[in-house]
């Protein structure tokens, strides 16, 4: 039916000598939304941050195993800059850079050395449209990005990630700092975005996972307990632990 974009094989991850991810195996399907759920401290964010090698920024972290993106083990790649243009990321809090709305969206292009003005303008407009923000900002592209509301900032950050046409975008609880209306907008946006990219999303909110995702992975204490189609996880989970979590008996 659909293709596998990413294969995670026997992934272990260590903070110093502490093993925080234990033998994780999982496939991310192209043009789908895969949600990672689990209680706080289960390692879902740690897992997410392996895909763009964010852990490399800090000392003492170690990966084992493989994460294959288009067949290439991204845990072994030396070119992190190229990797990060293929794997975008959106954080919990909106992170607009201290520059104009336009420059924010064009930032990835600038890093890639794309300078042709008409090309950059086209891509910025397209990305803002894809992020459902164009109509709200088209008249004030040169205003500082921080002048936008929280929800708008988060969509701006999504547009910024989209501009470089990544294979996948990682979302780390993208709506946890937003009000319900802004959250609904982002969720609606996510379901549209899977047509043009692939999404891996960490969420604290189980209803959100149920609403937007095709696949759900339930993690607990650094292990992947269950991974299946979302409706299966939420209606008829295989594991007792998963059932306990989704019915709210712990977590």
């Amino acid at each position, binding site marked *: 039916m659909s293709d596998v974009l990413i294969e995670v094989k026997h992934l272990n991850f260590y903070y110093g000598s502490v093993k925080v991810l234990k033998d994780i195996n999982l496939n991310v399907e192209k043009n789908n939304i895969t949600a990672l759920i689990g209680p706080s401290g289960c390692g879902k964010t740690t897992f997410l941050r392996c895909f*763009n090698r*964010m852990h490399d*920024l800090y000392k003492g972290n170690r990966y084992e195993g493989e994460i294959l993106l288009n067949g290439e083990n991204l845990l072994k790649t030396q070119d*992190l*800059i*190229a*990797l*990060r*243009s293929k794997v*975008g*990321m959106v*954080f*919990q*809090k909106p*992170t607009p*850079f*201290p*520059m104009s709305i336009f420059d924010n969206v064009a*930032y*990835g292009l600038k*890093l*890639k050395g794309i300078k042709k003005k008409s090309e950059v303008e086209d891509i910025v407009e397209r990305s803002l449209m894809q992020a459902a923000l164009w109509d709200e900002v088209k008249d004030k592209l040169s205003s500082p990005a921080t002048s936008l509301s929280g929800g708008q900032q988060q969509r701006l*950050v999504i547009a*910024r*990630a989209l501009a*470089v046409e990544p294979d996948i975008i990682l979302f780390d609880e993208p709506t946890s700092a937003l009000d319900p209306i802004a959250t609904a907008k982002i969720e609606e946006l996510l379901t549209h975005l899977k047509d043009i990219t692939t999404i891996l999303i960490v969420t604290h909110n189980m209803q959100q996972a149920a609403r937007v995702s095709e696949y759900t992975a339930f993690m607990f204490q650094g292990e992947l307990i269950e991974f299946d189609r979302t409706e299966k996880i939420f209606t008829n989970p295989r594991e007792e632990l998963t059932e306990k979590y989704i019915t709210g008996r712990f977590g």
Partner: protein
Amino acid sequence: MDSSVYLKDKLFRRLGLFSSLTIIIICILMFVVLFIYSYPAIKQFGVVHFILSDTWNPVKKVFGGASAIYGTITTTLLALFFAIPLSVGIAIFITQLCPEKLKSYFSNAIELLASIPSIIYGMWGLFTLAPIMRIYVEPLLQKIFLPIPYVRYLFTGTPLGIDLLTAGVVLSIMIIPFITSIARDTFELVPKELKESAYAMGATKWEMIKDVILPYSRVGVLSGIIIAAGRALGETMAVAFVLGNDHNIHLSLLKSSTTISVTLANEFTEADFRLYISSLFYLAFILFIMSFTALGIAKFFLGKMRK
């Protein structure tokens, strides 16, 4: 029991209020005293004329502040010119590049620099830096810049080592700790997610610093620079040793000059008539307003940043 607690509370509040008011009263009184003492000179020479005239002649009893104001501003600008890039560089190194273990050593070294009494900077400037400037640095600068039109005027004259340039260098070393520590603190305030976002876009460390940290901290660093400028404007001892005391305006940075504070330190003992003393107070009054303005601007930017 209850009423005595209430009484203590009230007493303490009164005491606190009184102490705080003292600060404000001292400031206002200083302003008033400076104004009263400089009034004869203000009446005699006017405001614009005093600021623009570079005649400083106690014999003829004619005074103008232009040379001292010029020296004050020039040494301060020179100090900022040298100190800003260095301080920002040091702060970037300490916060972004330096291994965690060495951080506190560098931070402490910088703060130690701030604790050295200014008279020691002055002595060092006179006995160590000035000869180095005279023998090595200034002849070299002349070799480079004298052939260049216009720029050459900044470097004419016989290198003495006791001049605006040396004073600027000494001052810059003195204000580096101020700019560095404020820059370091504002760099530390950049949210971790913001830095990670830049990396997540594929930015290198340098691109992250250039595009995220520096623009994000712009206002904070700017206020640090202005606070340092305020400090450089009023610095006396370190400058007095290496600037000479020359009430003439020279364009060349290799010429002696004077600043307001240096003039005050040197000449009060010689001021033997009322207008002379009053003119010195007038200079002090101008310095007071300059420092006050600098601090006010810094506060304004800091307030804007907190928003």
